[in-house]
């Protein structure tokens, strides 16, 4: 190919790119392998994953996925899930998206959902852009410091070049939550929206009703960043406060998508009907065909860039079709009561683990209640403790010092329905030994 275009080498082809911009890591990419070699390499890599007992959540959560989910998702009709333009050829996919939207709108208690976004963190970036478009007069957004740092970083990347200011709101060091009194002090002046994570990055439950009402009293929108499984137990964003949150978003992975080394996942987003024309992304709608039979089609496309170009709500022109297919089937199999049982099992599991760890002198860092994840105070640096637990095939949690120096000695631990009492006993035993060693050294 180089010969055909008249370049001596690949370097000569890229010659126009200034040296400073070149990323030389590309040179480390190995030469092509055949299918047999790649299969063998992948099997070796997969074996390295091992069989860990994982207690790490921090934004991606291990849940049991019924075998039927991916059996169905990998059917040919779903497996090529590119967004369907042609309603006449894509009724099955469009109906699936419509069912997904109905389920996720129901779960969040809001009127309308889009067909999904890339992931939870970029969904927050989109929600912020949407709030600024809706508010019209302010470009400030209040972001609590107990929001997942990856969400804050992704949102900052997306909006910082658009003259939008993200104002950090501190949280109460005892409770782990944002309280209205703190907001009063720091939030002088107008803002377009307040971001409300539920549960927040420490797994702690916020007083979402008070925060939503606080935002609305000041003419701000309330943006809910939620864990979808928790909504089976907790108040839906559409019912927060007197008027409900305006926009809800989150990471859809806990609904039937495996952890798989960090992706692909999907982001979900829902909003009040009044805001639907500012919502980014695809929307599948129900309609009737020329013969009066029920059918489905992409709708409200004038919001999208292939029609409105410079006025589009977003450059998002796609959705995570396959992951959404999994989530839809997962939710359909579990049903509302099944999802509630999963949520209750997660919450109860965390409580049982906390009870088992109390005799070891390990206590929750924050006093406010948690859903299925909690910051636990070890009293010693978490790094060596986690290392000792890894030797026993347990991923004991996330060292919160990774997020912030002020949280050193705290471990973010998650329990889902995948952990049995025996798993919890084992965790307590291994942690006890690791702590004894760490404290002995201290």
């Amino acid at each position, binding site marked *: 190919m180089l010969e055909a275009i008249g370049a001596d080498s690949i370097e000569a082809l890229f010659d126009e790119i200034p040296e400073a911009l070149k990323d030389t890591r590309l040179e480390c990419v190995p030469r092509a392998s055949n299918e047999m070699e790649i299969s063998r390499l992948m099997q070796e890599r997969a074996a390295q994953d091992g069989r860990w007992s994982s207690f790490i959540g921090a934004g991606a959560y291990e849940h049991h996925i019924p075998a039927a989910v991916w059996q169905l998702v990998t059917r040919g009709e779903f497996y090529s899930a590119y967004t369907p333009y042609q309603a006449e050829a894509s009724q099955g996919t469009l109906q699936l998206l419509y069912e997904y939207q109905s389920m996720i709108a129901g779960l969040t208690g809001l009127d309308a959902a889009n067909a999904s976004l890339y992931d939870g963190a970029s969904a927050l970036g989109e929600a912020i852009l949407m709030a600024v478009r809706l508010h*019209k007069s302010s470009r400030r957004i209040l972001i609590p410091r107990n929001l997942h740092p990856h969400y804050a970083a992704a949102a900052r990347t997306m909006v910082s070049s658009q003259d939008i200011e993200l104002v950090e709101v501190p949280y109460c060091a005892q409770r782990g939550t944002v309280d209205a009194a703190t907001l009063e002090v720091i939030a002088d002046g107008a803002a377009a929206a307040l971001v409300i994570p539920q549960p927040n990055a420490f797994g702690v439950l916020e007083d979402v009703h008070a925060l939503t009402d606080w935002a609305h009293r000041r003419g701000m929108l309330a943006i809910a960043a939620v864990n979808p499984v928790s909504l089976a137990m907790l108040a839906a964003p559409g019912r927060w406060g007197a008027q409900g949150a305006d926009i809800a978003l989150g990471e859809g992975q806990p609904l039937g998508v495996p952890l798989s080394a960090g992706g692909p996942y999907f982001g979900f987003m829902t909003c009040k009907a009044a805001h639907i*024309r500012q919502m980014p992304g695809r929307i599948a709608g129900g309609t009737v065909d020329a013969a009066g039979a029920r059918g489905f089609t992409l709708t409200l496309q*004038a919001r999208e860039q292939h*029609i*409105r170009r410079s*006025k589009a709500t977003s450059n998002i022109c796609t959705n995570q079709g396959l992951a959404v297919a999994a989530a839809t089937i997962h939710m359909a199999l579990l049903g509302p009561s099944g999802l509630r049982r999963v949520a209750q099992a997660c919450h109860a599991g965390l409580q049982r683990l906390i009870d088992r760890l109390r005799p070891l002198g390990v206590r929750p860092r924050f006093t406010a209640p948690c859903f299925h994840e909690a910051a636990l105070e070890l009293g010693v640096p978490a790094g060596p403790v986690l290392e000792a637990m890894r030797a026993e095939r347990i991923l004991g949690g996330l060292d919160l010092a990774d997020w912030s120096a002020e949280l050193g000695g705290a471990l973010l631990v998650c329990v889902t329905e995948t952990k049995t009492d025996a798993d919890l006993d084992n965790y307590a035993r291994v942690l006890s030994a690791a702590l004894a060693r760490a404290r002995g050294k201290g």
Partner: protein
Amino acid sequence: MKVAQDRRYASTHEWARLEADGSVAVGITDHAQELLGDLVFVELPELGKSFAQGQECGVVESVKAASDIYAPVAGLVTAVNTELADSPERINQDAYAAWIFKLAPSDPGELATLMDAAAYEGAVNADQD
């Protein structure tokens, strides 16, 4: 194509009519609604907001396209036709009766910079040739 004689026209297919109270009513032309097809949504400008001549101030959205509405003259928005929120099809039914918003013009003389009915009709016909 219908062209009403009692008003002026912008090249971007808005009409502007001086009302008895001195305000200027604004809508889109019959030709514009024909090109757009069935309208499904009208984004009205905000009451009290000021626009320069030619500035984008609203959107008409049809089943096949979305199109900006430009202020035919400079002015402050004094009224918006909220009936269009629920029934945008009124514009398809009678584009010259369905005003979208009214402006208090900052310079009523600007109306003279717009085309009269005959000039607009000529411009549209020239465009189609």
